[in-house]
């Protein structure tokens, strides 16, 4: 059977003063049924835009290149419009955003919004939809589903809101759930609980999860594979275990050095110098080169190749490419 989701050369352009800005360039991803893939990157790396593109939600005036393909069970989502696209949104792919308070309509009760999401994709009576809504609220781990059902978003705590949002995203029984920084706004303890819930739902529903996050620490033990994104490109892809054991790309290694560890004193934290370049500032050669401690001469002038390191693992870097020669 083919993969649930295959993204080939996803490129998103925005018109800029001179020509185009390309915040997502030639991103390719593959996601199997029931698998969790983490898409890790700093702000501005294009990870959120990549997630939105899977739903055909790239904000105006952005455009997905016609050579890009987003195949959901072999159907190219980028070619869909109207009702066919709306059937995918929520029905095949659910999405959970970071800010749960502003992601819920403030003037409608949680139950109202949840029931709406259910009946948008499944035909059922009002009473059945109500029962299904309360059941979903229980399934995402809300302690008192019946009272949450009647509550307005502002009456819930941050963790409750996030769970309600997950319930809404699950309402259409999607095969893929995109969690875009879905736990970033929460306390670490609540964050762990919500991730636990997501993992349980993945297991019970056989659903795939695309975990979009800037937090490498969150990925360990949750994701099967990790794709590291930098400046609109995927720079490294590997299984979670091998990425944590032996990060291949200099950027990934730099990220690990920037994570505080209990066994090391804090002054050994090594920040990555500089900032992620803006799409307008990208030039030929490796996009990480200006900040890379291991850069070679050619890195500034020649695009690095994507080097396969193991089955399903690769690094976009000149170093392993040259080592093999």
């Amino acid at each position, binding site marked *: 059977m083919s993969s649930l989701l295959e993204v080939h050369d996803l490129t998103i352009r925005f018109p800029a003063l001179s020509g185009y800005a390309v915040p997502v360039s030639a991103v390719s991803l593959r996601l199997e049924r029931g698998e969790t893939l983490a898409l890790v990157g700093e702000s501005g790396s294009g990870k959120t835009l990549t997630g939105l593109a899977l739903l055909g939600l790239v904000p105006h005036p952005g455009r997905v290149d016609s050579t890009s393909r987003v195949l959901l069970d072999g159907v190219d989502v980028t070619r869909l419009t109207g009702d066919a696209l709306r059937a*995918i949104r929520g029905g095949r792919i659910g*999405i959970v955003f970071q800010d749960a308070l502003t992601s819920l309509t403030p003037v409608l009760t949680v139950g109202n919004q949840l029931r709406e999401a259910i009946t*948008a994709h499944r035909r059922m009576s009002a009473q059945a939809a109500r029962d299904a809504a309360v059941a979903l609220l229980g399934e995402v781990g809300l302690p008192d589903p019946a009272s949450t059902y009647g509550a307005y978003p502002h009456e819930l705590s941050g963790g409750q809101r996030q769970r309600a949002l997950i319930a809404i995203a699950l309402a259409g029984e999607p095969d893929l759930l995109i969690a875009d920084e879905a736990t970033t706004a929460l306390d670490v303890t609540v964050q762990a609980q919500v991730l636990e819930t997501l993992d349980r739902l993945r297991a019970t529903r056989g659903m795939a999860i695309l975990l979009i996050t800037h937090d490498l620490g969150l990925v360990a033990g949750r994701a099967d594979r990790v794709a590291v994104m930098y400046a609109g490109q995927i720079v490294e892809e590997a299984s979670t275990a091998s990425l944590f054991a032996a990060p291949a790309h200099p950027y990934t290694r730099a990220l690990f050095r920037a994570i505080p560890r209990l066994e090391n004193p804090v002054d050994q934290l090594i920040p990555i110098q500089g900032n992620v370049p803006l799409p307008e500032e990208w030039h030929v050669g490796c996009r990480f080169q200006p900040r890379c401690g291991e850069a070679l001469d050619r890195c500034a002038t020649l695009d690095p190749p994507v080097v396969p390191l193991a089955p399903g693992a690769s690094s976009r870097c000149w170093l392993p490419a040259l080592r093999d020669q």
Partner: protein
Amino acid sequence: MIGSLGELLRRAWRHPSGRWGGGVLLLIGIAALLAPPFLQDPAAMRDVVAGATGPSLAHPFGTDALNRDILSRVANGARVSLAVAGLAVVLSLSVGSAVGLIAGYAGGWVDAVLMRTVDAALAIPRLFVILLLLVVWERIPLVALILVLGTTGWFATSRLVRGEVLRLRHEPFVLAVEGLGATPRRTLVRHLLPNAAGPLLVAATLGVGDVILLEAGLSFLGLGIQPPTPSWGGMVLDARPLIVSAPWTALFPGAAIVLTVLSVNLVGDALQAALDPRSA
């Protein structure tokens, strides 16, 4: 933030002008509803030759030139006035909301065309347009009066709703709703419009006051509600020759207009105050 419409109404009620205006309006509404079974038929002319008689026990507001009971006619006039104003405002809110939602959501040239049309329409005095439209009929049907009042009152509402859509359309919840497969219509009507409920309620209340005044003015000019249907404006018109000899014939319908419009505007003010968190 105001959580719900119920809370908005409660806060408006706590405001003194909300309580006074709301109370008086409630009394007028009750009088209008109870008028027919208890009061004399407004069209009944008992003894035309007797003419206008002053207030008495039998006729607390007196009688008019045709010896009809003024209390009964004022109460029945309230039915007509409130019904016309209510329906006209519902109509203008619907049209205004629809235009505002479409303009704000579509943006671009759709927005430009709609809003420039509204600008142009707002530049023409409303009464002038209404008079032009109403001369089409020899005897103006009530439905026509409602339609004309309704379709000339939505311009400001459309701006209000458009502003609300522009404010909210880039909020994450709109993206979230679209990400769940909602159609544009559902996004607009179910998720954006309810956010404008508060300001719309204020606009509606103030609009009712406007329309009552307009309708009274039109009836006074003979272009509004047609006799023998009692209307406050029409009663003041009929009372004109008697203003010195029988002042009560003009006083009571006139007072009804003033009292109603005043209470409606008081309620509007209270709602506005309740919407503004700084006034709490």
